[in-house]
């Protein structure tokens, strides 16, 4: 690591390059403010850029996200740090924040990379592709995904064998193993926290068999299977490559469940499951899709109609909580569930099970301020100090929250929340 600490100043710091952070950065920059956007991943776009389509319109997620991330990347008022993390923030005074940022080496000179992927072609190392949720492999020299922004290669140094093949193959000679971790002290007038959410890890519910039964997937794994840049040639079971006929969705996996410590409704699982079920009916016209639910919460604009549309397409709905999943010799899965309407315990066999995993807080931002000034709410999301009158405000004056960092919400609400945060930040800067 280099000992040198670089200094820079901007009007605003936006932490998190997902859809909320990106929107907030664009709003600020379009109003003439200089913005630094810090993203810990290798690409901006967050979780949305990896989705197949969005509910309830079934618009292509990438078609909405790609122009947005492209605008962010090209905007002269926005500087983007990818592969970078905030380690601490100190409020020195009003409109005076000092933030320590660490930027990991990419081992590729971003400005020179042409995304030709020749490095990827010759790299001999294959590891699980985290952007395809481990369903397929990627190389140690790789472009994160086809619509990544920046579309620049990176070297996964933990898995690299330092064979040098990528460097020899690179036409512009932009691979540089001499790069080191860079440290920055950033001065800004305001901070927007848009650090998003974490997905529930279904390994915490062993009775569902995730990780043991290979045909039990999470909803994000199914999301990737449904996306145009999917890991397989069609929808297939990861356990044996079978095209599934009978697919089950288990809603509220890790939401509304005190036993795993998350009593909160994730607000998006019902709707994304309805969306995926409809897309599956399109991709596999002969398939039977069954959704096991406690309540269908279709509360937003156009959501109830979307639910009715799903029923009209022939998707089955069973009101009941799934207690246990077991596997047969053929890799099929038997769901044991309580049918609430029939008032009895029943069993049903499916080819594939999708766990609609819930939204959990990302608690990283709570540690940014050394003295715990940034407060959390009772569920560990960033606390909204004045939730009714000024929902973007946090416990620290001048620090605002955008998107799912403050609680579960869908994409339109995240974008609205980002608008509120950027407006509040501008007001604060102008005071």
């Amino acid at each position, binding site marked *: 690591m280099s000992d040198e600490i670089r200094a820079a100043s901007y009007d605003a710091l936006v932490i998190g390059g997902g859809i909320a952070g990106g929107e907030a950065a664009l709003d600020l920059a379009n109003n003439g403010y200089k913005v630094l956007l810090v993203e810990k991943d290798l690409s901006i776009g967050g979780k949305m850029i990896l989705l197949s389509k969005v509910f309830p319109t079934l618009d292509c997620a990438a078609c909405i996200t790609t122009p947005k991330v492209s605008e962010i990347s090209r905007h002269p008022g926005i500087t983007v740090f990818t592969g970078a993390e905030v380690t601490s923030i100190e409020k020195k005074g009003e409109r005076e924040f000092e933030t320590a940022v660490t930027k990991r080496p990419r081992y590729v000179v971003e400005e020179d990379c042409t995304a030709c992927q020749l490095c990827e072609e010759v790299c001999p*190392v294959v590891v699980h592709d985290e952007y395809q949720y481990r369903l397929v492999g990627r190389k140690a020299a790789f472009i994160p995904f086809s619509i990544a922004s920046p579309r620049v290669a990176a070297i996964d140094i933990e898995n690299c064998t330092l*064979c040098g093949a990528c460097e020899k193959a690179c036409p512009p000679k932009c*691979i540089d193993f001499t790069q080191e971790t860079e440290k920055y002290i950033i001065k800004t007038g305001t901070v927007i926290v848009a650090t998003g959410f974490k997905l529930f890890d279904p390994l915490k519910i062993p009775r569902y068999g995730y990780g043991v039964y290979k045909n039990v997937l999470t909803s994000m794994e199914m999301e990737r299977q449904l996306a145009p840049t999917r890991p397989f040639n069609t929808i297939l079971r990861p356990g044996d490559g079978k095209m599934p006929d009978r697919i089950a969705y288990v809603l509220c996996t890790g939401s509304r469940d005190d036993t795993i410590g998350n009593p909160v409704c994730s607000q998006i699982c019902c709707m994304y499951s309805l969306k995926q079920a409809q897309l599956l009916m399109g991709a596999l016209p002969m398939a039977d899709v069954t959704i096991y639910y406690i309540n269908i919460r279709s509360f937003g604009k156009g959501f109830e109609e979307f639910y009715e549309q799903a029923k009209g397409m022939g998707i089955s709905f069973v009101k009941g909580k799934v207690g246990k999943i077991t596997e047969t010799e053929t890799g099929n899965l038997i769901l044991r569930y309580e049918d609430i309407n029939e008032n009895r315990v029943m069993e049903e066999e499916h080819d594939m099970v999708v766990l609609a995993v819930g939204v959990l807080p990302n608690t990283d931002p709570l540690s940014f301020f050394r003295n715990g000034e940034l407060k959390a709410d009772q569920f560990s999301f960033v606390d909204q100090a004045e939730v009714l009158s000024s929902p973007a405000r946090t416990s620290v004056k001048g620090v605002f929250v955008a998107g799912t960092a403050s609680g579960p919400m869908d994409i339109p609400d995240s974008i609205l929340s980002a608008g509120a945060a950027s407006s509040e930040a501008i007001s604060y800067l102008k005071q």
Partner: protein
Amino acid sequence: METEKGKTFRYLREKREVSQDAKDRLREFNRAKKEILGALKEKDMTVNELGKKLDRPGHEIMFYLMTLVKYGSVEAGDIDDMDEYFSYKLKK
């Protein structure tokens, strides 16, 4: 220490050791690749058929096979009469 453009990997090789995990993963992938490509040279096969022939679990075959499809060594062929399993073949 070597820092000439195009040969900087030598610089890092002096500074850090390649982990045993990374070496093991490389060896395992090469072994699986050789086995799968060898089996498909004989005839087109489904994931289950490859699993039986190579004595590997289906999910392992899926991971390596789909990676070989992604990087262009293998392609999907026909689906069986029950519309359940694709066969896979070497890409010519």
